[in-house]
């Protein structure tokens, strides 16, 4: 295996594009190194992007936040502005693994790992995050929900890698939340999860909503019907009930070592309802 730590995006793209055999991007390494260690991956080349300028920076502008692909989830949690604007995304990022893992893991990596159970992905999707992809043909910006296509697979082409995640500027009277179910209190992969982002009008009526569910389908899914169930409501019991039903109806989970179809379908609805209440409160709803 070759290891390279280029200091520009251009050099990283060139290395990845020219690589013979398998090439992988190393940001936090908390997925990549586990797979290498288990013998599931034997890369010919690993490109460490942490030494590329700007890759470890969180930039705030009028259009929102740009989070460099090598920014660790711990660093996200330490950014007061980001925490205030997108508490759900930051909480999700700070649920991944342990403190040790959070010192290293990144939301770009969490996205590229393309696991349906990735903690930060439902929160990012609900937030309307976009990924900036660098590649041999330049840069393109793609909504986060379009990146994973199936477990472990993304739309990224040879030579491409995610350079940054963009979160929109926080809208007035909006709030996001993320909840996951795990059997223990920490250290587990989500058995099922829900990320919700709500915007309210001045009377507390939901005017916009995005609802994403994790670990209930081959990829994290946006559930349009669930969002629709909330729009126009003040999050009354009937709306929450409809939200729950829409979420359960959208589930296409599997039985596996982490949970059953029955459990995931039922708990998806529970978590969505609970997350909606938190998001509503954060948006200023009462």
């Amino acid at each position, binding site marked *: 295996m070759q290891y390279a730590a280029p200091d520009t995006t251009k050099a990283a793209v060139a290395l990845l594009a020219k690589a013979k055999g398998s090439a992988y991007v190393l940001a936090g390494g908390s997925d990549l190194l586990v797979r290498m260690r288990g013998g599931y991956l034997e890369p010919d080349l690993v490109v460490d992007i942490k030494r590329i300028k700007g890759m470890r920076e969180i930039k705030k502008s009028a259009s929102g936040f740009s989070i460099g692909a090598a920014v660790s989830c711990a660093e996200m949690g330490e950014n007061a502005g980001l925490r205030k604007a997108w508490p759900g995304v930051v909480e999700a990022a700070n649920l991944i693994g342990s403190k040790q893992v959070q010192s290293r893991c990144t939301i770009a990596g969490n996205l590229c790992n393309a696991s349906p159970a990735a903690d930060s992905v439902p929160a990012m999707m609900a937030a309307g995050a976009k990924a900036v992809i660098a590649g041999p043909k330049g840069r393109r910006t793609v909504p986060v929900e379009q990146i994973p296509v199936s477990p472990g697979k993304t739309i990224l082409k040879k030579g491409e890698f995610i350079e940054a995640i963009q979160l929109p500027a926080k809208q007035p009277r909006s709030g996001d939340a993320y909840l996951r*179910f795990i*059997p*223990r209190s920490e*250290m587990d992969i989500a*058995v099922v999860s829900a990320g919700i982002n709500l915007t309210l009008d001045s009377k507390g009526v939901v005017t916009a909503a995005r609802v994403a569910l994790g670990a209930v389908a081959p990829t994290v899914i946006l559930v349009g019907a669930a969002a629709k169930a909330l729009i126009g409501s003040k999050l009354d019991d009937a709306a929450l009930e409809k939200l729950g039903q829409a979420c359960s109806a959208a589930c296409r989970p599997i039985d596996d070592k*982490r949970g059953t179809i029955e*459990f995931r379908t039922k708990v998806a609805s529970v978590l969505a309802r609970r997350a909606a209440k938190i998001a509503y409160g954060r948006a200023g709803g009462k």
Partner: protein
Amino acid sequence: MPLDTAFTGQKFASVGTRPIRPDGIDKVTGRARYGADTTAPGQLVGLILRSPHAHARIKKIDISKAEKLPGVKAVLTSADLPDLTEGDKSMFDVLENCMARTTVFYEGHAVAAVAAIDAKTAKQALKLIKVDYEILPHVTDVDEAMSPKAPVLHPKMFTIGMEPRPKKASNIAKRTEYGHGDVEAGFAEADHIIKESFKTEQTHQGYIEPHACLATIGPDGQGELWVCTQGHFVYRNTCAQLLGMDVAKLKVTASEIGGGFGGKTHVWAEPVALALSRKANRPVKIVMSREEVFRASGPTSSTSIDVKIGVKNDGTITAAQAELRYQGGPYLGMWAELGAMTSFACYDLKNVKSVGYEVLVNRPKVAAYRAPSAPMAAFAVESVIDDLARKIGMDPIAFRIKNAAKQGTKSSYGPVYGPIGIGPTLEAAQNHPHMKAPLGKNQGRGMACGFWFNFGGQTCTDINIGIDGTVSLTVGTIDVGGSRAALSLVAAEELGVPYSQIKCNIADTGSLGHNDMTDGSRGTFSSSMATVFAARNAIKVLRDRAAQMMEIPVDDVVWEDGHAKAKGDSHGNLAPLSLKDIAAAAGNTGGPIAGHNEIVADGAGVSFATHICDVEVDPETGSTKVLRYTVIQDAGKAVHPTYVEGQYQGGAAQGIGWALNEEYIYGKDGRLQNAGFLDYRMPVCSDLPFIDTVILEIPNPNHPYGVRGVGETSIVPPLGAIGNAVSNAIGIRMNHAPMSPPRILKAIEGAKKH
């Protein structure tokens, strides 16, 4: 003359205090050396090739390509480990488990091994070994394995203990039965009878240190083994037998051990490492990966248990019966038998019968796990006991107290009890503030009892007095959790010197006689007994030397407060001699001063505990949080109370993990799906509350200080205690452990439908 081991009720100066352990500094500074922390000149890396199949015949193994890979120094198959077991079936099972011969019996079963100059080369070599398998049908579930339709693992396995012995082979290896009285007559007297069935899933000891060893055998047939083990003498004997070596020519040195809980009482990769070293003529180090630990070391049994108990309206149990089916992996163990023996041991029963079935399945060979087999039996029995108490409207503690075993009770497994702690632990629970604390919504409180035998066994200890009067205490039982501190306290107590004057070392197998391993909660019990007698022997020598120095008869010298003192008025002007004074003169009074003791430490007092816990269950997700937990257990005498508390807390935590989340999950393909800490889900720090402890001290009459083993009993009650608490929180009896969120939610949803 047999030694007098009777409890004397003496007052203690050192025993019962809480000094810093002698191995402490090394363990907080990273200096302590564990199994994987040592190297030898020219050492090779050993790796093991394991079966991907749950059950298959090995048609052919081709190692030729692996042998030719540059850097590979030895490739090993079962042909390099010939059968030297001379008809010893259980030893043959150990051999076959270390390296499959004609058949692989579980996914992860070793089929070949390599030793190479580095890990990279060894990994490559494993890939070059070609194994041709004929896949056979498999069975992993204990109940399915008993079915007449199940694939039979061993075609010559005819159930032992069945009259008449079956002529048809099956996976039921052995039937055992314990009890007394007439259970049918007892049930006929009962006003109420409850019969319930339970299942518990397979769990692993989960020690954080994977198995690791460094093995060397020279062309002269002499060998050395550095290994993390609970019993280096036993490892020596087993390895020597399997490899055809002279026992005295294999020196085993125990590393510090990173947890064992029973899992390091059994050899796994050690004979393979020795055989590789013999073949390569170089030292070989094998360190298991975590995945290998899960797949190929010994977890505890999964079980299926039926319990039936009859009771009168006044709370008297009239009869108790259990059938316990425990799987042992592919080999006969005594797991169901231990379950049958322990199941009703807490109670004073007129009519009792427990039947155990040892069942073979395509899972790893089961090993001991802390009070092996008792937690599952207690889960079933304590659940039914609670349900009976509810049925007759009696408080669950009062019901247990009414039926508790006491001194003079004939136990359900045979012996008559001496002074025991079940009643006192129950009374302490009844009076504990925990029982009166308020509970909130969705919360429930549960309690349960547990029993463990405790073992004694072969032990020897040396005490050597240094030239400056400091004391080397040399023991042969592995220190798994602070026993060096406890044994130093005992030596200090007996010699009358400060704890700081003692240094306790664990001897290698060349430096001390045979010691059984640290299992059965015997480490402190048995080695403290040997230490007491070794110290008394040393004192005899010290008195003799002091008599020479004082020029008075030895009968006029007494040993008090760490000094030899002249007794009687006629010697009134003689100053007492300290250990240091006597040691300094040793060269002129007869040479080095030492005391030894070799003993079979009989009379390990049985141990009982009662646990109380509060849980909260989320009715929408089935998730259980443990809010409060209290352990009450009899220690006989807590030599170092801090480490006694530690044993209570650690066992409770393991039991809580088992009760709520830990389990081996098998796919239909017979492969283990969660061979890692991520999905095996042991409790993390944020899963648990503080675990309160109450140490009761009901002296063991068979130990000079009253010591009982304390290590294991604490894992016995938690499954029942959590089960009862969950049941009280949700109003439904959970009879399948672990009581994981999907199982609890399913039960809640199921109850809604009815």
